[in-house]
């Protein structure tokens, strides 16, 4: 046992909390170093002196003053204690607020993205259904706008080309190739 180990065990030695083997080791160290016994005795003496320090006592009117304070604050003290019950970690107030918020979010989402309306956002849907306003000036309504001269689909240039070409019969060519063989 060295000096540091000895110092660490002083309190436990004085309070009889050392195991038998440790105690023997401690006492062997004390025999080897008799001067260290002074330290042990000094600590022991301090401990007993601390126990002997006169105790401070409460004044005689301590309870009366305390009970008066309780009475004067009774209205405040008698308030019901807030519930400590929690719902998924939330207090009842916060839980109800959160539930309301979730319901509101779901409702708004359903309104915005309802599948029955073709998946379009509400405003876009309304805009698409709106008919264009008619012109308010009657003079403008009378003007005959020239109709655009769109080419009909069945009369486009590709169709024209196909019309001009005679139907070719490739069966004869096939026949010719077969003759050479």
């Amino acid at each position: 046992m060295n000096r540091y180990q000895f110092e660490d065990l002083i309190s436990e030695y004085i309070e009889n909390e050392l195991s038998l083997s440790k105690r023997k080791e401690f006492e062997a160290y004390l025999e080897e170093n008799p001067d260290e016994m002074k330290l042990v005795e000094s600590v022991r003496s301090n401990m007993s002196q601390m126990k002997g320090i006169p105790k401070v006592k409460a004044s005689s009117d301590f309870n009366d003053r305390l009970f008066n304070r309780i009475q004067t604050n009774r209205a405040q003290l008698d308030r019901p204690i807030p519930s400590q019950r929690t719902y998924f970690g939330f207090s009842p107030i916060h839980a109800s607020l959160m539930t309301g918020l979730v319901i509101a979010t779901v409702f708004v989402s359903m309104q915005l993205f309802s599948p029955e309306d073709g998946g379009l956002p509400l405003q876009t849907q309304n805009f698409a259904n709106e008919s264009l306003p008619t012109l308010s000036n009657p003079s403008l309504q009378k003007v005959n706008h020239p109709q655009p001269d769109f080419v009909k689909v069945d009369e486009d240039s590709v169709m024209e080309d196909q019309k001009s070409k005679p139907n070719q019969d490739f069966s004869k060519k096939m026949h010719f190739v077969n003759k050479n063989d």
Partner: protein
Amino acid sequence: MMKQNSSNLSAMSLDKQNKPFIYTDEQLIARFQSGDERAYVELVNRFRDRLINFVFQFLWDREQAEDVVQDTMLKLYVKKHYYREIAKFSTWIYTIARNLANTELRKRKRRKTTLLSHMSRDEREYELPAIQPDTGSEVQSEFAEKLIQSAIHSLPEHFKTVIILRDIQELSYDDISSIVGVPLGTVKSRINRARLQLQAELKDLR
């Protein structure tokens, strides 16, 4: 009505009752939680002196110590439902008192800092209480007590708390561990080191 209530509480005091309580602290707080105010009075009677003595070692002012213990008892009255029987009642009440004493010490420190910052340099040379040996056994023992108390007072905060709880309040290591909130081994080590430091301080003073 209010006066009547107040006198009812005072009348419940054990000082004025013949029949003593035979309940443990934990049974008493359970009774108080279920509405028996006599149990509260008994708890106050059991702990007031112990707590004043404990807080006094930090504050060194009897009146302030008493105020802190009053606040502790008031807190016990108001927050009785916060106690759960997972710890001993004594550890719970000591923890409240210790926290309130620490708050008071912090307030005091702030006040002192403010006062010192407003003082001139000459005014800052304040007097320290003289501790001198005198003749006569009574005076000598009083002198020894003062020496020990001033040595305890000069210890670092974490040493001071454990040494007061162990050597003056005579609490068990387990209870101290719960009050201070550190492991048992640390408590033992702190107490030992505090005793050695105290011994060194007293050796210099004697």
